């Protein structure tokens, strides 16, 4: 069984702080991590490797620094790593990203593709389903549990109000929730191997040019554009009200509505 796990290197948004004076993001010194949903998906793949001897390939698109995320995946136990890295891929929205990843996947053997449900920097949850569409594969997203049964997989697909148990024939694509598995740590020896014995293959546009339409990649191939971005501003101590209980309750409810905590 061949499994490809698509991972993204993201800034640890838990560590992202706002500059209290300017209200802008402080990105300096923010550590990069494997996106948590992706890492959970990787763990699920590695469990299948432990159980069934599956061959696990990790695939990422990103700048050269994303090498570290792929080495980390190797140090957790992945067999192979491929980094799609080319200036031509830069500035991609989810359409262009999924087009590029799909182009690479057409060159890799797979029975199962796993992506994370969504990345913590973009929060779109779009790349997985879009890859599936480009490759014409069945998809199940929001997966919390996975097992293999013959030439199919059985997954637990989570909804807001319950779940479905779904059987899908391979090949297919699933998007993993963080809750699907607790990722293992790297192993010391595999860390050394990841740097001393294994390689991260770098694929540029040239390596996938026969499987991708160049008008669908990078900034130029992105239907959506960022027109503006802004921060919500610095957090300051909130207002303190000294009012009677009913009035206080109304003020709290207003705040809860404003923060979308209730509706």
């Amino acid at each position, binding site marked *: 069984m061949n499994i490809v796990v698509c991972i993204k290197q993201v800034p640890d948004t838990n560590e992202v702080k706002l500059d209290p004076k300017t209200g802008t993001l402080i990105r300096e010194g923010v550590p990069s991590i494997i996106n948590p949903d992706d890492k959970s998906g990787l763990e699920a793949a590695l469990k299948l490797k432990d159980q069934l001897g599956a061959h696990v390939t990790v695939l990422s698109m990103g700048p050269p620094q994303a090498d*570290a995320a792929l080495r980390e995946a190797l140090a957790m136990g992945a067999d192979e790593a491929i980094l799609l890295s080319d200036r031509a891929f830069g500035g991609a929205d989810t359409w262009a990203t999924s087009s590029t990843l799909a182009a690479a996947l057409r060159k890799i053997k797979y029975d199962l593709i796993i992506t994370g449900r969504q990345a913590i920097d973009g929060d779109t949850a779009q790349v997985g389903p879009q890859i599936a569409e480009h490759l014409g594969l069945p998809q199940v997203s929001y997966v919390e549990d996975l097992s293999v049964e013959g030439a199919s997989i059985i997954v637990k697909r989570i909804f807001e109000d319950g779940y479905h148990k779904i059987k899908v024939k391979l090949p297919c694509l699933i998007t993993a929730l963080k809750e699907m598995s607790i990722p293992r*740590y*790297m192993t*010391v*020896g595999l*860390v050394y*191997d990841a740097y001393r014995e294994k390689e991260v293959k770098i694929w540029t546009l040239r390596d996938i040019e026969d499987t991708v339409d160049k008008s669908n990649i990078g900034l130029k191939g992105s239907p959506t554009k960022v027109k503006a971005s802004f921060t919500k501003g610095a957090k300051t101590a909130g207002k303190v009200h000294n009012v009677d209980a009913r009035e206080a309750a109304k003020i709290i409810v207003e705040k809860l509505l404003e923060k979308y905590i209730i509706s």
Partner: protein
Amino acid sequence: MDFLAKEHIMLQKMYREFTENEVKPLAHELDEQERFPVETVGKLAKYGFLGIPFPKEYGGQGGDSLGYTMAVEELSKACATTGVVLSAHVSLCAAPIYEYGTEEQKQKYLVPLAKGEKLGAFGLTEPNAGTDAAGQQTTAELDGDYYILNGSKIFITNAGYADIYIVMAITDKSKGTKGISAFIVEKYFPGFGIGKKEAKMGIRGSSTCELIFENCKVPKENLLGKEGKGFTVAMKTLDGGRIGIAAQALGIAQGAINETVTYVKERRQFGRPIAKFQNTQFQLADMQTKVDAARLLVYRAARLKDSKQPYTVAAAQAKLFAAEVAMEVTTKAVQLHGGYGYTREYPVERMMRDAKITEIYEGTSEVQKMVIAANILK
């Protein structure tokens, strides 16, 4: 540190994740209950900690001393107990078998130690032979296929939980230090027993006990190195061990700084976080600078060992300096925490207690100075 190779930076990340999730949550409890971290040892084994610097053919991880040193440092940032469990196992038990063992001994003992299936310990110190290690009284007499050991060892780290012990005993009284030999002793050898457990000031989760030998039968093939070479084995082993303890001290010190940084940003007095006060800033600047200097010494010693260069003096300097820095920095950390720092609600008081032992065991600071001075004046 900028000069670290990428694999060391990745190892650091792995150690930190492991420590944060598996070690830190237990640190307070292990100290309070004086409980040995049995569950952590299993996890250390699973992820390869127990065999970092040994070749894969002996069950190790194919790593190096620097990678191992960093592991002790990172674990000790949260829990010095866990740090010393690892250090005693790798530096004092597995390492001498790797260095001096026969192929059979390596297969039989190093492989399970490096894989983490067995835990190791080391016995040199006796009630009357501390810094003066040559004053050994434990004896080993050859009787047919066995050496018969009699005597006792004290302050033995991992005792009771370890399966394999490296033990020094006198095979020829007339030859002084040249009459001392090293043995590999398994915990179930007849006549071997664990004595009194020490109640300690710090590293209270680690096990520190007496070893008792009463006509203990050790197969003669368990002699480690040649007869009469035990003192050399012990001294060389301690050279390596000192890098481990230096790393432990370094970890404790950095851990105390990290706790203090969090605290001074939160703690408000006179209407602002105490981090805004110049005293806090200057103290922290001193603390971090000293710790970074200690780190350079510790990593240098590990690097020398990795490149097969003499490292005895470098290890002594690293341990001397890192231990003293650890004591100073943890004391200041408690001071910066004020009254709260003196309570057990914050970890810095534990770190201060833990730091003290690094100035004492595996050669006191005074012993390190003897080693360093002898080298200067030679």
